[in-house]
């Protein structure tokens, strides 16, 4: 893992001290709320419905056990004993008090963490594949580049007041687990004709009120020129992105309105100016940072295969967990383990301080001290020997973290919704809870197979409903909550935006509506191997609509 150098440590310490002074001045009345609000937002401190909310950055979703223990400690001492992991691979605390924020930031700084740039019109936390550096299908580990992007974008003076917030995602694998086509910039590892590794650059993707799939602006940018190319995009956006209307200020609108070719021409012109200059990545520096992400010195394993069928007979719950929560590892004898934060009836993404401690202990003992946060609001132990899977599973069972539901219908993305969020129009968590209860039966989940439900409590789409195979959007109607259902969204390399299928549903009718869609899919699929999204693409919208509304 990356360790702070003296520059990182100095800027985080400086910023922490600066904000501590700003909090002190606010509490003394020296600063008004109008003066203080932009300062607190720059430090990740929001005001939600019931209390402040502190959003802590988890750079590219990577944590050590020491850092996870610190997050648990903060939850226990300064909050209410839990934290909420988000689709930005960050963690949010829902109940901190303003006077405690300086000491929380001090605690974070002691483990090389902070809350800087988790809000505001700047470049936010760079996100990536949760299996980066471990996945069997990976071309290159994207984390060194993600770290370089973190350093480049942190307190970048030119990009601290962009027209709007800016999100970058990067993946080193052909199978996109980081939703890169729904980010302002998405980067995907690519190999050119000479066998060199570089980056496909996608631009102008996003969700929110105007969902758009990113467009390929460059099919191969060499690693050494990546920063120069990205800075060129940022300059074009900073110059031409709209500042008169916040709903049209994201780069997706600029690309859409001006056209890809126009934007590409401007980016290329800028790139021609800066290419080969100070932003060229020296290979020694890339090597230096890459060294932090060198694979662990894996112990040789004699057990290189697990007989899941056998284990399923002996212990069905363990078998389900092996079936769903284990991802193939590049190193023989190892696997990546997804730790589900989606217990039946739970709030998706929430983990208690005790659970965080358990996962930290497991990372230290079984995963070379590494942890990941996924954009689907789960945790990952990236490097676990197959021989240790049973011990890890048993520890997770004891901590209520062993739900074997990864990628199944109960593994939902869900925003905090109107229970917490000042922007929301409708509740999200209770909807997710009811759906997970309805489909709690493991055999039913297995029968349904891969199905991604994503729930947002407003059009800002923090719950990624646009890219759910089934998306649920809560809206306000006549003072009450109503839920629109979308079908056909997909966040992967087969990116698509879901379409609203018909009139919305009252909250109590949403689980039943989902069941109708699921039953129809099972009745119509060409076999258990045809997933929901595949069946939807084959059959089209009309029969699903008919199944749901019976309009014929």
């Amino acid at each position, binding site marked *: 893992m990356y360790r702070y150098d003296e520059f990182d440590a100095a800027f985080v310490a400086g910023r922490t001290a600066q904000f501590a002074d700003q909090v002190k001045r*606010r*509490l003394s*009345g020296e600063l*008004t*709320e109008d003066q203080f609000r932009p300062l607190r937002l720059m430090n990740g401190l929001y*005001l*939600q*419905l*019931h*209390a*402040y909310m502190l959003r802590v950055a988890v750079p590219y979703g990577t944590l050590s056990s020491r850092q996870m223990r610190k997050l648990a400690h903060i939850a226990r001492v300064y909050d*209410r004993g*839990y934290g909420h992991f988000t689709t930005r691979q960050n963690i949010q605390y829902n*109940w901190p*008090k*303003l*006077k405690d924020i300086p000491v929380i930031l001090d605690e974070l700084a002691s483990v090389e963490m902070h809350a800087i740039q988790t809000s505001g019109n700047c470049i936010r936390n760079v996100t990536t594949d949760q299996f980066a550096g471990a996945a069997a299908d990976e071309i290159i580990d994207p984390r060194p580049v993600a770290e370089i992007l973190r350093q480049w974008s942190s307190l970048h003076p030119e990009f601290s007041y962009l027209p709007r917030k800016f999100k970058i995602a990067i993946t080193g694998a052909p199978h996109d687990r980081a939703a890169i086509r729904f980010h302002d910039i998405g980067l995907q590892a690519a190999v050119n004709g000479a066998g060199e590794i570089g980056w496909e650059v996608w631009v102008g993707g996003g969700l929110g009120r105007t969902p758009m799939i990113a467009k390929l602006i460059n099919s191969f940018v060499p690693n050494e020129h990546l920063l120069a190319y990205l800075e060129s995009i940022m300059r074009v956006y900073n110059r031409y992105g709209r500042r008169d209307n916040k709903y049209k200020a994201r780069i997706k609108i600029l690309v859409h309105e001006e056209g890809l070719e126009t934007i590409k021409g401007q980016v290329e012109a800028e790139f021609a100016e800066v290419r080969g200059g100070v932003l060229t990545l020296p290979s020694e520096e890339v090597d230096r940072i890459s060294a932090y992400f060198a694979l662990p010195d894996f112990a040789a394993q004699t057990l290189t295969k697990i007989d899941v069928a056998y284990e399923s007979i002996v212990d069905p719950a363990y078998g389900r967990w092996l079936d769903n929560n284990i991802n193939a590892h590049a190193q023989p004898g190892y696997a990546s383990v997804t730790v589900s934060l989606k*217990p039946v*009836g*739970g*709030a998706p993404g*929430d*983990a*208690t301080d005790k659970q965080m401690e358990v996962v930290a202990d497991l990372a230290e003992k079984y995963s070379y001290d590494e942890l990941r946060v996924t954009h689907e609001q789960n945790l990952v132990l990236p490097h676990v020997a197959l021989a240790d899977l049973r011990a890890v599973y048993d520890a997770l069972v004891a901590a*209520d973290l062993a739900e074997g539901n990864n990628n199944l219908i109960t593994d939902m993305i869900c925003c905090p919704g*109107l*229970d*917490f969020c*000042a922007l*929301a129009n409708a*509740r999200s*968590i*209770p909807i997710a*809870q009811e759906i997970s209860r309805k489909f709690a039966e493991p055999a039913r989940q297995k029968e349904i197979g891969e199905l991604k439900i994503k729930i947002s409590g407003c059009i800002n789409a923090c719950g990624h409903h646009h890219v759910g195979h089934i998306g649920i959007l809560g809206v*306000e109607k006549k*003072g*009450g*909550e109503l839920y629109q259902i979308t079908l056909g969204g997909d966040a992967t390399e087969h990116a698509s935006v879901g379409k609203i299928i018909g009139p919305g549903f009252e909250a109590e009718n949403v689980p039943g509506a989902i069941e109708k869609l699921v039953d129809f899919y099972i009745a119509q699929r060409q076999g258990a191997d045809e997933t929901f999204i595949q069946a939807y693409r084959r059959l089209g919208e009309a029969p699903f609509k008919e199944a749901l509304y019976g309009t014929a």
Partner: protein
Amino acid sequence: MSKEILTGNELTSGATVYLSAGGTWVEGLHLARLFAKEEAAERDGALAATKATGRVISLEIEEVDVVDGAIVPKRLRERIRAAGPTAPLTLHGQAYDRQHLGEDGHVSI
């Protein structure tokens, strides 16, 4: 006949608070001062006085009904703000409590 109340979040704790008839900012919705439409000037005066303290933020005027003597905000958002989150807490099966004022969280105008 609907009335109005004043609500906001107390600076140090962030807790939801209401202006009471006694001029203090309190946690209990049931203690909120009800403003009739024709009391707009007094309402705005109270808002201005509160802003001057700097101790209550995100100030809003909310419409409420009085139902069987109880104050009921018209907006669901405000009903949730008054009562706390509705979703049960993971693994504990209990409702999230709302935020409470700390020792240094009491504000008067």
